[in-house]
Each structure stands twice: as structure tokens, then as C-alpha cells.
């Protein structure tokens, strides 16, 4: 399945938007967290600044998000994990409301209750969460519902290679194959689960090989490349939509930042992230779209400008929105 001109441009645009979003967050996140304005003796204060708490960024992993989401419709479900921004953006989650959520504002997707790991946008059927492995069975449920309701929508669960060692992953695979669910499992192999390398956590080299044990196709995408992901995902999504059941895809991808912002990264060879950036998938796709004549240098530049402005507007919206009232903490425990 080849990508149309529209799909190529869409993937390119979304990857730039995601990268801009993550690089901006890396800067904004640091505001207020460094000495001297924090408790004496600390090097960094995770709870300080306009965007407090943990922050897991996905710069480098854009191809996984866009290559899969290029095949999805608004009524398809995506369940992400603790590193969710690239999936959210590719799925079309409201950028302003998502950003406001990370600032803890009342205009946020969860009115400040969730934060960056817990984003819920029912309008585009997106959700994510902070418990590793938890999303895979949830995607099965969405797929089960599609089947029961006679819809041709599909569900995609995205998670890391570390999550593929959780019991929930293995139970979800069996359920999906047993019930022939329209679901696609996408493993992002960014080589690490926090500090632990895949080779130290996983007994086999490719999670795609595990698919056979559950009776579904397993596909390994060996390059961090949007088109390669697009091809594999196209077949998997089409198969699911035809009612032929689940697929497991593993993509070898790269994590440019630490596990979370503030990660000392002592477990990682010095300069590794810099080396990975030499193989940045965004310029690679940029070259392709220009070679195909889909974009010239000046429209490329204005595209980047427009996306940077779009992202900046979302951050401005988040920053300038009001906080919820403290006592609003008591709302939303139960549905009214």
C-alpha cells in the first residue's frame, strides 16, 4: 500500500508538529524547576514551575504515531501509554485543551485532574494512562464494542517494548486473537524501559515473534521511518477493518530525550542521543516530499512557521488559562 500525496504531506506535517510540541515542552517544563528558586540543596524540583510532575517526551518516535494514525478515522480508538503526546497529536486530540491539561488548567481536557499521562478526548476516541501495559486490554474492549455494535471501526493500542513483558499484554493478545477483534497492537521499541535495555528485559529480540504464539500476524518494522510504519500499519488496519482479526507490529524507534525530563541518563552511553539524531526521520521524509515535488523549499519553510505558530498558540492558551478552583478537586468522582 503506497501513501498518497495527501498522506505523505499529512505525515510530514504531523511529525513536524509533534517535534515542535516536544521541544517546546522540554523548555517550558524546565521553567521554575532549577536553582536558585527551589529548595536549597536541590538540583531540580519536579513539583515546581508551570508544568509540574513527570514528563515523558516522544521526540524521535514520531514515525510510529503518524505511520499508524494516517490510516485511522475519527471513530477509531487509540489507547496510548505514559509517553502519549505524539499519538494524541496524530489522532487529532485538541491541542489547546491537551496543553492546558499539562498546565493543570480548568480549560484542560480533564480540567486539570489528569495531567500529561492521563489525557482523555472522547471526541476523537483517545485515551492514555500511566500504568505500563494497561492499555492493551482496553483497546480490546473498544474493538469488542465495535464488533458488538456492528461498526467497522478499529482500535489501536500503542505501548513500549518494556510493556510487552506485562501480563496484561499477553492476556490482551490472546483475547484479541480468540475473539478475532479488530485491534492492532503497536510496540514502540525505543531500546529502553527507563534504564533497562531491551536485551536485559526481554528473552527474545523481536516482540513480533511473540505474535505467532497467540495466533496472529507479527510484523517487525526495522527502521524508524514513517513510510515503513505506514506500510505495515496499512495492512494491519485493513485486516482489522475487514473483520479478520488482530495484528502485532513492533517498530524499532529512537528516544531522543531521557525516560523523563530530569533523567540523569547514566545508564546510556554518552552521546547516544546525539548519534540517534543523526538519523532523524523528519528531514528524511522532508527530502522525499520535496523530491516528489509535493513541497518546495519556500512552502516547506512556511509550513514549519505555521506549525510553530500553532504549537506556540497552544502553549499560550495553556499558560494563560485559569486554574480550577481548589475545591473542584471534589468534583467528578462519580457521574451525575
Amino acid at each position, binding site marked *: 500500500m503506497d501513501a498518497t500525496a495527501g498522506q505523505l504531506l499529512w505525515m510530514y506535517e504531523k511529525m513536524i508538529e509533534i517535534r515542535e510540541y516536544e521541544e517546546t515542552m522540554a523548555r517550558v517544563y524546565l521553567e521554575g524547576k532549577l536553582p536558585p528558586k527551589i529548595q536549597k540543596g536541590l*538540583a531540580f524540583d519536579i513539583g515546581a514551575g508551570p508544568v509540574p510532575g513527570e514528563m515523558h517526551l516522544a521526540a524521535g518516535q514520531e514515525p510510529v504515531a503518524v505511520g499508524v494514525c494516517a490510516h485511522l478515522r475519527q471513530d477509531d480508538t487509540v489507547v496510548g501509554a505514559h509517553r502519549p503526546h505524539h499519538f494524541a497529536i496524530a489522532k487529532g486530540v485538541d491541542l489547546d485543551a491537551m496543553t492546558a491539561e499539562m498546565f*493543570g488548567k480548568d480549560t484542560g481536557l480533564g480540567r*486539570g485532574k489528569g495531567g500529561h499521562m492521563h489525557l482523555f478526548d472522547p471526541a476523537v476516541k483517545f485515551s492514555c*494512562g500511566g500504568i505500563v*501495559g494497561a492499555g492493551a486490554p482496553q483497546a480490546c474492549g473498544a474493538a469488542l464494542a465495535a464488533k458488538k455494535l456492528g461498526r467497522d471501526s478499529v482500535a489501536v493500542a500503542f505501548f513500549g517494548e518494556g510493556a510487552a513483558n*506485562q*501480563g496484561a499484554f499477553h492476556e490482551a493478545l490472546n483475547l484479541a486473537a480468540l475473539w478475532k477483534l479488530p485491534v492492532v497492537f503497536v510496540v514502540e521499541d525505543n531500546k529502553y524501559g527507563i534504564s533497562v535495555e531491551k536485551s536485559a528485559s*526481554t528473552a527474545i529480540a523481536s516482540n513480533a515473534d511473540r505474535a505467532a504464539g497467540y495466533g496472529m500476524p507479527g510484523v517487525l518494522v526495522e527502521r524508524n521511518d514513517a513510510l515503513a510504519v505506514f506500510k505495515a500499519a496499512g495492512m494491519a488496519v485493513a485486516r482489522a477493518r475487514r473483520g479478520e482479526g488482530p495484528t502485532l507490529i513492533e517498530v524499532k524507534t529512537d528516544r531522543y530525550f531521557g525516560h523523563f525530563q530530569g533523567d540523569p541518563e547514566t545508564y546510556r552511553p554518552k552521546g547516544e542521543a546525539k548519534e540517534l539524531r543523526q538519523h532523524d526521520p523528519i528531514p528524511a521524509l522532508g527530502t522525499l516530499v520535496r523530491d516528489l515535488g509535493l513541497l518546495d523549499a519556500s512552502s516547506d519553510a512556511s509550513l514549519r512557521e505555521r506549525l510553530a505558530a500553532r504549537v506556540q498558540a497552544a502553549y499560550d492558551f495553556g499558560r494563560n488559562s485559569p486554574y480550577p478552583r*481548589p475545591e473542584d478537586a471534589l468534583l467528578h468522582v462519580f457521574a451525575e
Partner: protein
Amino acid sequence: MTTATPAKARTLTMAQAISEATAQEMERDPRVFVMGEDVGKYGGIFSATTGLLDKFGPDRVMDTPISETGFMGAALGAAAEGLRPISELMFVDFFGVCFDQIYNHIAKNHYMSGGACKYPLVITTGIGGGYNDAAQHSQCLYSIFAHVPGLKVVVPSNAYDAKGLMTTAIRDDNPVVFLYHKGIMGLSWMSYFEGSTNEVPEEPYALPFGEARVVREGSDVTIVTLSQMVQKSLVAAEELAAEGISAEIVDLRTLVPLDRATVLKSVAKTGRLLVADEDYLSYGLSGEIAALVAEHLDTVRLKAPVRRLAVPDVPIPFSRPLEQFAIPQVDNLVASVRGLMNAKVY
């Protein structure tokens, strides 16, 4: 061995105290080993295992896959064979993925075997909020572990206690859940209550379970509390003292076994009780302590009703104003005690 001048007191953070206790027990007893996520090279996300890999190597300090059911079950199996595993659950919130191993097996097998089998293992885990980590990474949940018969439950408030209690936990022949609050570990990347970093002797020592500590004597009101809330209570007590209110603070230190006598003695003395807890309000620790006092009203005379301060039965929200509202703060402690001073029993 004598020294002419006493050495300058050595202070440790709670994280350092826990890893020192672990290292000393590993030196003393070759059966002790550590496993969990990021406990090796990283030294534990909350630094509870820092330095252990270098000292003891990867056979005794094992990084695990993200497979909590797997390695909690493995801890049970290894303990049954006579080893003494320390198994780290990175955040207590993650118990959800492995609780069957903990509450149906680790907690009960000794009982179900009629005492024939022993499971000397320690589960260490990070608890608590206050740094905007939201609903899945900020809970305390110690009451849930204490609720299940068969688990000893330790919740230290400072480095000195943490070292002595960790030593006891490792030497105990029962499963022990050791819950350390992230906001008192003395991490370089999270603000913390400095009272938790204190003097810790270098030599190994064990503190008995089931002995609460009166960390501040007072005459008007008893604050029964634990973990980071002890540090908050100490700050609140200073403010109250300035207003002429004398607060006594009881640090429970262990929930199982629970030192009921110390609680009752203090409440009998002051006649007023505030239970300050960072766990959810309902069906938990604060209710347990209130019930304890209610059951002893034949010997304990109250001047005011029992009051409880805890998370008001909502998940821990992310946003700063919401989280500060949900988790009891020093100001709430002060206000609750003031309210108690004005309240009367019927």
C-alpha cells in the same frame, strides 16, 4: 576502642539510610538479595538501592522486566526456598498489577500451611503525593496492605527510623511491606521535609516493630500520624505552640503490628485526638485509630470528638491547586487542631 572527641554526627537522607541498612544486611547474610525495576544501574528511581549494584554485583541486585506479577511471585518462591528477597515495587500504585501474588499468596501461605512454610521477604515501595504526579502515582494505600492479615506494614517518617526498621524488616521471617514516602527520601530532584534527614549511626541496629514513637510531647491534643505527615505535624505543632496550644505527636511507624497502647496512653493524657493521614479518608487508617479510641471510652476520657484529616475520598488530582486541596497540608492540620480545641463532647 575509645575516641577522645565524639565524631561529628553523621546525617543521612532516608534513601541513604534504607540502602545502607540493605547493604549491611546483604553483607551479614548471603541469602539476602534485591530485585525490581531499575534497582541496578539506576540505583532505584527513589534511590533506595543506590550503590548496591557496585557493592554486590548483578547476581544480588537484579533489574527485572516490567513484570510485577512475575517478580513478586518469584520473591515468594525464592523465600520459600530459604532466600531472603527484597522486592521493589517502584510505586505502590502499581500493586494493582500484582496484588494477587501479594495478598492471596505472600500474605496467606504461612497461615494456610499451618505455620509449616515461611516467607521471609520484604516488599519496598514508594508512596505519597505532593509533586503533581496525579492519580496513578501519588497514593499511599498502606491501609490496604494492613487490612490483609499476614503482612507486616512499616511506614517510616525519617532516616534514623528507616534504617532500624529496614534492618528489622529484612531479619523478620514474615513478609514485610516497607513503604517510603517520596517526599521525605531527601532526593535531589523533589522538595522534601528536612526533618526527615537526620542522624544515623553507621553500625547496624534494629528497631522493634509495634513501637510507636512520641516525637513531640504535648498536653492539649494528640496527633496520631505517620510517614511524611509526621514532618508536617511537627511544623504545625510549632505554629500551634505559638498560639498556646500544646500538641503531642505520635508517629505510628508500623501499622502491623500497631502500638495501640501508646495511642491510648497519649489520648488519655490529652483528651483530644486528631488522626492525620495522607491516605483516603474512608475505610482506612484514620477510621481504625478512631475505632480504637471509641472502643476504649470506658478508660479514656475525651474532651472533644475525634477528628480525622485525610484525603477526602477523591483520586489525587494533577493540578497544583487541586492536589494541595486534596492532600492535607500544614495549614489544614493547624485549623483542625484549633477546631478541636473549641469542640466539646456531648
